[in-house]
């Protein structure tokens, strides 16, 4: 069993390394992530963000603009997830004051 898991780990490790070798270099203009038009022919949203973030929101840090403005829903969801996780842990761990005899 242990030999199988080690073999699986090694196989997937080699696959990941091979896949990384196939990635385009950083900043390559023709890489799919850098192009303004996707392979399917539709415009890429990132190009709009880079060109218009400063103009739209008067904020030089375009990461902030994307996070809090263009993708505001997403950030609201993230905050809600943190809040709900905290609330769930609180409800699970909260033990009533008179429950010490039960434990």
């Amino acid at each position, binding site marked *: 069993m242990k030999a199988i898991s080690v073999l699986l780990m090694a196989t997937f490790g080699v696959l990941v390394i091979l896949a990384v070798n196939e990635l385009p270099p950083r900043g390559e203009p023709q890489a799919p992530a850098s192009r303004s038009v996707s392979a399917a022919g539709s415009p890429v949203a990132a190009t709009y963000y880079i060109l218009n973030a400063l*103009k*739209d*929101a*008067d*904020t*030089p*840090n375009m*990461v*902030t*603009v994307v*996070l*809090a*403005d263009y993708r*505001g*829903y997403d*950030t*609201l969801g*993230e*905050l*809600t997830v*943190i*809040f709900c*996780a*905290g*609330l769930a*842990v*609180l409800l699970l*761990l*909260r*033990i009533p*004051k008179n429950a*010490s005899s039960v434990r």
Partner: protein
Amino acid sequence: MLRPSDSVIVVVVGRFMAPFVQIFALYVIAHGHYSPGGGFQGGAMLGASVLLLRLCVGERLSHRMFPSGLGVPLSSLGVLVFAGVGLVALAGGGAYLDYAALPIAGMAPAALRSLGILLVETGVGIGVMATFIGLFDLLARDHESE
């Protein structure tokens, strides 16, 4: 109940460091428009500064700065500030979370969006900080003394 640390060095250094951590956390939140940072990071630092005080000077003193009971109300307030900004924008005639529609007279849409981002990041900071501290207080609670 967490007692103050026995070591004078820990108590003094903790009390000395906490205000600087808090100032830097506020800077991280407020300067998120121009540099890396924002509500999540700044809120985590604000929470960590309170945890530092909890661990160094004990709960009795650090509860004066941030009472344990404030955890849940403040984290709810953080979410409500974020959602409330969206609703105000909705009331101002725009889409939900469209800060350009915030009903403040005499401000350009770009400036309004900048302001909306700041408000939203403040809500995120409050929520993250309060959740951090609330969870810590819950886990550090001593059941014997209750």
